[in-house]
């Protein structure tokens, strides 16, 4: 039957692969299994076979793509410049359309809940009560990694949604509050507002924004993703810079046609301000800190130096744990969808952290942070690089100038 | 023995010895031998005739008339030479261009073909690898008289099976080597030999050309630019002599090749009976030794084989082995070796029985 939607991977996208295989060693699922069927080259090969009419979009094909984390580690190493992430989203849209039962599956997670603030608030409230009462131990196994990786949800100030403030001499920033980010990781958003305003920006968090649509797109809900994107493009069109504090969101924003180059991850915005001298550099040596690279920052956006420069400005010495930055296994809903592979990758990443002998970890993405916290346990402190940075400034007494 | 056919009689240099002048001559001799069931011993310089099981030939094929350099391309570092060429002559030609084929030093009368067939290597093998790594092409006449070529005259080649490599150490069991192409190497004129206190001292320099230990001393061999030599000899504590002074292989009634993992070399030296003379190659695991008596060899072999090594007889007086197998325990995959020989030398005429396992 071949492709049926307008989202499908194009021949041009797929032809960009000459099957050289350089993507294999950086692919976490290939590393886990050693199988072509679990590699980027294999998945593109399977997509091409659909295009040629050799293979059907069925449960088996869906299974091959379900196993992909979507970490896009294959993209930077690809000398043929294959747009793997785009092809993957296209293929998933086809699966959602063609494979029976896939259309409705997980819709409640990606579209209904993330698109609705009320639903998110309600869910978060439930989690917060559960956390307080110690009930999260009772969650089903496949969700426990998430609940055990959560930050403490109580008493963390107001949501940033609707905030507006700052001088604006360095330009105006629109902040994407994110879905879970403003609920479960509110301190990251609040830190972002503080630092951006310190750096001379006017910061606005417009209420007209919605979910960035990343999870929906990754999950084959192309239609929903387009609706989200359209709404956000409108909400953010008047800003000099549009910033997200979750790497997964900023990577997706970067793909919006309507925003162009104004979209940036918070680490890029803060590092730039430090480089320009708009944010201070601490003179205090605070010792070593593990830096973990979220896939959507390093692979999808090729942002590598910025989080390190932020840590250095905070007085930390970044400790590298993984030269190829293999995925930690969080990967959006992967923890729930492929618990076994996610578990193995999470343990691998935790082992890399442990073998460094350092107990402070910086991670610029909420999914990674939860995965790390869950696998590392309470002896390790995991936070966003900008949080470590602001805390250091406050310690130096320079947090409020 | 029956009289030779007329086309072969012209090649006779003495009774039962034929000296072929071309690959076709070699082919004629081997076809004749295959038809008549004659055992043929191939003779180069005769320096390694004691190696392996002693031959009992009906006919000797002398390679003395196949000595030509067929092609020498100094700018490409390749040499095509016939098998009967003396190693000494070949290296003398090459050194005029500051090049070497990295064949054994102090070769005596050995020939290129003999060195390859017996699998002998240069002392420099720890740095520049052994003879088998230098063989690019071989033209061979199989036991049943087919002239076949494998490999090519270029420095890197994976075209088809590595037939040339199969000839190394095969003692002609698959065929007689007629000519070969060798990969040459630059031989810098500045050289030094440094005597050191212990083999460990050699670790001060990166990949020296050779580290040799004999009954008297340990020497490190280096070459390169004058500046390199100076730097390396300084690291070795000085006391360098200019030039390379290679030891002669020890000679006595019995000759031995002891091969052990490099890490076992010092242990192997300690196990040698005191009357044995030896030259040991550090980093390689090869010991060339000689002894007046065979005593102690069985114990040494048993230890070496347990460590993954070998003790091989390279020379012995007639009847001196007294049942002691020249090779020791047969190698793995012997059935496959047998089948290979059956394909190439079906009448089993070239050096029969000389290989391990009586092949």
């Amino acid at each position, binding site marked *: 039957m071949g492709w049926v939607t307008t989202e499908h991977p194009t021949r041009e996208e797929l032809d960009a692969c000459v099957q050289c295989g350089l993507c294999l060693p950086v692919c976490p699922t290939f590393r886990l299994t050693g199988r072509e069927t679990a590699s980027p080259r294999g998945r593109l090969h399977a997509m091409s076979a659909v295009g040629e009419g050799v293979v059907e979009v069925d449960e088996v094909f869906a299974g091959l793509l379900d196993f992909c984390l979507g970490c896009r580690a294959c993209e930077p190493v690809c000398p043929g410049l294959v747009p793997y992430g785009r092809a993957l989203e296209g293929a998933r849209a086809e699966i959602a359309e063609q494979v029976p039962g896939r259309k409705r599956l997980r819709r409640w997670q990606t579209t209904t809940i993330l698109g609705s603030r009320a639903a998110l608030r309600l869910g978060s409230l439930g989690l917060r009560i559960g956390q307080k009462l110690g009930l999260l131990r009772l969650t089903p196994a496949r969700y426990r990694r998430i609940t055990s990786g959560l930050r403490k949800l109580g008493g963390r100030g107001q949501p940033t949604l609707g905030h507006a403030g700052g001088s604006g001499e360095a330009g105006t920033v629109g902040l994407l509050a994110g879905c879970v980010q403003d609920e479960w990781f509110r301190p990251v958003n609040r830190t972002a507002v503080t630092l951006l305003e310190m750096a001379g920006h006017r910061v606005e968090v417009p209420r007209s924004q919605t979910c960035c649509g990343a999870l929906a797109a990754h999950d084959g809900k192309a239609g929903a993703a387009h609706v989200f994107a359209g709404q956000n493009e409108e909400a953010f069109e008047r800003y000099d810079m549009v910033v997200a504090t979750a790497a997964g969101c900023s990577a997706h924003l970067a793909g919006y046609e309507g925003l162009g180059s104004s979209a940036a991850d918070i680490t890029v915005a803060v590092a730039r301000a430090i480089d320009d001298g708009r944010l201070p550099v601490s003179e205090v040596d605070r010792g070593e800190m593990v830096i973990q690279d979220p896939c959507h920052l390093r692979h999808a956006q090729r942002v590598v130096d910025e989080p390190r420069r932020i840590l250095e400005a905070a007085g930390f010495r970044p400790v590298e744990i993984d030269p190829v930055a293999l995925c930690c296994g969080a990967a959006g809903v992967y923890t729930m969808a492929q618990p076994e592979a996610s578990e193995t990758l999470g343990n691998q990443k935790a082992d890399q952290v442990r073998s460094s002998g350092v107990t402070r970890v910086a991670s610029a993405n909420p999914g990674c942070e939860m995965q790390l916290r869950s696998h590392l346990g309470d002896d390790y402190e995991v936070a966003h690089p900008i949080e470590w940075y602001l805390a250091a400034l406050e310690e130096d007494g320079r947090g409020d100038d | 023995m029956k009289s030779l056919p007329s086309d072969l009689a012209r090649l006779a240099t003495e009774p039962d010895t034929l000296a072929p002048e071309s690959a076709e001559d070699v082919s004629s001799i081997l076809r004749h031998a295959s038809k008549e069931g004659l055992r043929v011993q191939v003779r180069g310089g005769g320096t390694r005739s004691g190696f392996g099981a002693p031959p009992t030939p009906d006919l000797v094929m002398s390679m003395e008339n196949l000595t030509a350099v067929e092609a020498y391309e100094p700018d490409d570092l390749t040499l095509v030479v016939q098998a009967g060429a003396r190693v000494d002559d070949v290296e003398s030609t090459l050194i005029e261009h*500051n090049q070497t084929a990295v064949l054994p030093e102090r070769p005596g009368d050995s020939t290129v073909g003999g060195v390859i067939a017996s699998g002998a290597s240069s002392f420099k093998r720890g740095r520049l690898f052994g003879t088998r790594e230098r063989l690019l092409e071989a033209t061979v006449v199989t036991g049943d008289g087919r002239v076949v070529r494998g490999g090519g005259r270029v420095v890197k080649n994976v075209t*088809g099976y590595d037939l040339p490599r199969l000839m190394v150490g095969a003692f002609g069991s698959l065929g007689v080597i007629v000519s070969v192409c060798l990969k040459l190497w630059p031989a810098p004129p500045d050289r030094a030999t440094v005597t050191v206190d212990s083999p460990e001292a050699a670790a001060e320099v990166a990949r020296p050309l050779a580290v040799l230990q004999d009954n008297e001393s340990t020497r490190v061999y280096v070459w390169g630019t004058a500046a390199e030599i100076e730097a390396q000899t300084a690291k070795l504590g000085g006391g360098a002599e200019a030039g390379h002074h290679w030891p002669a292989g020890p000679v006595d009634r019995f000759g031995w090749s002891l091969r052990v993992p490099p890490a076992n070399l010092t242990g192997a030296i300690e196990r040698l009976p005191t009357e044995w003379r030896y030259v040991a190659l550090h980093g390689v695991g090869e010991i060339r030794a000689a002894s007046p008596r065979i005593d102690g060899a069985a114990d040494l072999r048993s230890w070496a084989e347990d460590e993954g090594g070998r003790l091989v007889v390279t020379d012995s007086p007639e009847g001196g082995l007294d049942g002691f197998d020249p090779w020791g325990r047969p190698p793995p995959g012997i059935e496959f070796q047998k089948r290979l020989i059956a394909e190439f030398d079906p009448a089993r005429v070239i050096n029969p029985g000389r290989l391990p396992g009586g092949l």
Partner: protein
Amino acid sequence: MSYLEALRGALGEANVLEEPVELHLFSKDASLLRGQANVVVFPQDADQVSEVVKIAEAHKVPIVARGAGTGLTAGASPTEGGIVVVTTAIDSIEIDLENRSAWVGAGVINLDLSAAAAPHGLHFAPDPSSQSACTIGGNVANNSGGPHCLAEGSTTSHVLGLEVVLAGGEIVRLGGNAPDPIGLDLKGLIVGSEGTLGIVTKALVRLLPLDPDVRTMLLAFPTVESAATTVSQVISAGMVPAALELMDQRMVQAVENWLQAGLPVDAAAVLLAEVVGETEGVEAEAEIIADLGRANGATSVEVARDETHRATLWKGRKSAFGAIAQLAPDYYLHDAVVPRTRLVETMSAVYEIADRYDLTMLNVFHAGDGNLHPLVAFDASDPETNRKVHEAGDEIVAICLKNGGALSGEHGIGIEKRDMMRTTFTELDLDAQARLKEAVDPSGVFNPSKVLPAGSRCFDFGGVRRKELPEGVWV
């Protein structure tokens, strides 16, 4: 019991793939030619490989070994159908520091081995450009080369021993840390035999010490000829650098487009040269190369600033094939080797052929050992272009052979170069090779139809004459 049931029984269902889409993905390697796998298996050790071999022999089904599928001659394509045996699960590394060697599973990735050895100051010398993905099993099967085999030799020079499953499912350990194993060199025969004689499950490889010092330099030239002349002159100057690689302008531009490393995209050709050793020698040799380059008109000579810069330059070189995708969906390349003294004239002829056929030609190759990789970027879905590409390829090979060259330097013969074997070997030469195959693999199950053209086994010396056999019969 069918062979599929037997395989499931021997390896467990999780290690046997049978879905059509799965089989499709294992039916080709990085070359153009597709086969059709009947089943894909993932043995965990030599014992399981042995079981697979016995099943294959009992049912007369071909076995095709596969590592990472980066081969360029369809060596791992199951062109005769059968069982694809993927060795990636056999991935242990046991380093023996005292002997400077390691027993390595066939499925270990080449670069992973060197990464594991690096903390001990050691490395595995063969470094094919696909080294970040290709496996040791594949390296052994193809006797792989790479830029650094110029000075250190190809894979075969670095394999001390093998664990291999031969006909009858016999598991044999050949060679070892001790030098010069006695008897015929079966190990040496199996290295480079492209899976046609057995399946290698482990290799004992030599590890070399990391070099105390290194200079990596990039020389830009106004013509390909001046770069190639420099290469010939470096070799005749009495030195063998660690690596001497040439890339032409189109190739540099494609790589730079991805790498963004400031490569000299205006130069007609660049030479990547590397010298290693003690500092004194390294400096002298680097100076000689730079001087020769300048004498031949080099417009710039850039020395790698640090290890990161050096790594970037090598990354550019080693990712070149993949970058071709920017120009066209397919590429076809040859791997012929010519004497270094004939490099300049051969390169001119190669470009002339491409121009005459109006094809997009790129060159990126191991100039130091004369190993060309003339590469045509094209769209294989157009039959006319396809025909032109293959005709041009045949001409390129012919000119290389005429100049004293060999068919393949490091990629192997597989299927893609198989029928050209007759242009370089006589019937008797090929017959000898067919005899080797028959002696080691009497039932013919190991990777049939590869390396040797059909009818290689002739019977000129026996009773049957080859001409009496129908064309294409495998005897």
